């Protein structure tokens, strides 16, 4: 389908008005996991522990791999280093500090020291509030100034669903379909799961 039309579709899916960066933000592709054991360059070990825990809460290991299995934490660190501006990075890191401070004030412990249910509840609380706030502000993506928790979610989704495990074990992926069937029962569309690469988004 046409590239520009696709642009619209994608931007709309993200619930925003149309702008270039909205599409960049979710242009699918292609995440790659960072090489195992590589040293984070933006996040400290303590920060990395928080981000890893959050990413795994958002996309946990089940009968298929989770966020940590596919290297999402390293991916987030790499994206912060090379893709995000200094301003975005600063906002992310201060949001991270506020998040950890909330754990301290609510439970008297750092986030990583909380019980798993407490951790999940805190992520849930920040997540739901941030969504309400983004809807309220209704800003175009370029001026979104996305919060720490939703930046983490965005990068976790991107990193996970463009990873090999995310694309092939949670979603389904065929490199060379060879033919097109416009309208088939879901169960006859491969294994019936969502396609990892959608028509219309890829160019």
């Amino acid at each position, binding site marked *: 389908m046409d590239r520009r039309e696709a642009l619209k579709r994608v931007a709309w899916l993200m619930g925003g008005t149309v702008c270039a960066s909205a599409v960049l933000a979710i242009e699918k592709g292609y995440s790659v996991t960072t090489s195992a054991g590589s040293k984070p360059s933006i996040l400290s070990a303590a920060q990395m522990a928080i981000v890893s825990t959050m990413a795994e809460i958002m996309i946990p290991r089940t009968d298929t791999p989770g966020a940590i299995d596919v290297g999402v934490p390293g991916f987030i660190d790499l994206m912060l280093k090379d893709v995000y501006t200094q301003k975005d990075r600063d906002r992310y890191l201060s949001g991270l500090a506020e998040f950890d401070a909330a754990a301290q004030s609510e439970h008297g412990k750092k986030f990583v020291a909380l019980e798993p249910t407490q951790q999940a509840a805190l992520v849930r609380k920040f997540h739901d509030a941030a969504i309400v706030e983004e809807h309220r502000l209704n800003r175009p993506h370029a001026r979104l100034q996305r919060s720490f928790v939703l930046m983490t979610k965005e990068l976790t989704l*991107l990193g996970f669903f463009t990873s090999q495990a995310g694309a092939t074990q949670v*979603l389904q992926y065929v490199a060379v379909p060879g033919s097109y069937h416009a309208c088939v029962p879901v169960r006859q569309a491969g294994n019936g799961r969502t396609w990892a690469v959608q028509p219309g988004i890829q160019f």
Partner: protein
Amino acid sequence: MGSNSYDAIVVGTGISGGWAAKELTEHGLKTLVLDRGRMVKHGDYPTALLNPWELPYGGRPTLEDLRHQPVAARTGYVTSQASKHWFVDELDNPYVEKQRFDWIRGYHVGGRSITWGRQSYRWSQMDFEGNARDGIAVDWPIRYNDLAPWYDHVESFIGVSGSAENLSQLPDGKFLPPMELNCVEKEFKRTVAGKFERALIIGRAAHLTAPLAHSPQRGTCQFRNLCIRGCPFGAYFSSNSSTLPAAEKTGNMTLRPNAIVYELIYDGKGNRASGVRVLDAETGEQTEYFARVIFLCASTFGSAFILLNSISNRFPAGFGNDSGELGCNLMDHHLEVGASAIVDGFEDHYYSGRRPNGFYIPRYRNVGKDKRDYLRGFGYQGSAGRADWPSLMHDAALGVELKQKAAKPGPWHISLGGFGEILPYHENRVTLDRTRKDKFGLPVLAFDAGLKQNERLMRKDMANDAAEMLTAAGFRDVRSFDSVIGVGLGIHEMGAARMGRDPKTSVLNAWNQVHACKNVYVTDGACMTSSACQNPSLTYMALTARAANHAVEELKQMNL
């Protein structure tokens, strides 16, 4: 002939240059084909076979990438890790924006024929008559019937999948089997036809849905929809997969990459250009090449640059610029306006394969008895699909639930965006800024062009009509959109050396020859006299093939 002399020179290897090369060499002309960028042979598509997880950064451009391609990034997609290598480094190739102007360039053999959208629509009689009918700009010196056999010729060679619809505003062509609309698109088609008496058709796209006997090197579409990376199957038309191999096969083509043509040589004898001056992009070496006929196919503004930069006593204001129209009347298609909606139902239906195409709603405004408060009209391109993981960004689901939701195809949604005609305004123009230089020491182009009242009025219809049709179809959460754009973002730039009947008001004649210098042809988007609303590449190809065959005849008659 000397070692630097040929029968013909073609400048550029994109959609138009590839066609000029093919036609001229197939008629036996020893042809030098020059491109300013690097060599790309068919198959040299480095990202074509990469899986999603093999591209870095989730496909997104880095800050360093964006520093080199800030204008290309305005598109929102071409600077991805999968395709950024097909677009120029803007630090090396600057230009001036007196108004925002989105100039999206690809400097390499094949040019933007590798990255084009493949949508292929004929113009109609209505489009060629428009300027005369409305009393604006100048009349096209040709009509549909002049071009119809060349559309046939081009479509038969490149392969265009599509359906015959018998629409006067969008003539049928020589089609390969059409791709299919999905169930939601078919449902929308019923509304568009039943309640609005408008057509909705599958896009006409330059993809092989059946083999072409004359191009055995090309395979049929594999429905990967990764076209912008280059197709290793040769399934969509590009110069690299199609016209350049045809030219190569004749043995008459000499192809030189890294050859920046910066000037035509006007020697003052017999109103002819004797050749071109070339700067080697790698060594800086300057060379002159000579030929009996020269085809400028360097892209609209690439050709405009060469003409503007070719100053002589005869042409002090730019080559062939007796009319003063050189660089004027810039056009594009305005877009980023339309509507989208969510579609309930069809939950038990999905698709398999990735169709590199969508639906098309041909122009209906100011057609027949319809009369609007603006001139001309627009067409829509769109598609329907099922939501996937990006739609979960604002979803409450987290954890196991998020994984489960992502694995299940989401709701159907549909979106359509307009492509609107921009009128040719004399004051929308490009000039040479000789005070600034690019990496090669050449002056740079300066753009001063904008949308006007006619386009603004049309955009209201483009948003409202789309929303109205989606609402009438019973879809929900209908949202219209209308973004701020720069001219150029359509990547359908046209004008700057328009065709016309009168040398006093146009640069080129009915055969794409420079009025005042008949052995120079300009057959890319620069030649366009109006923009219509259809994607223009097919028309460039038809005009180029027609002009090349004219040049061959004129050479035989010793008229050039």
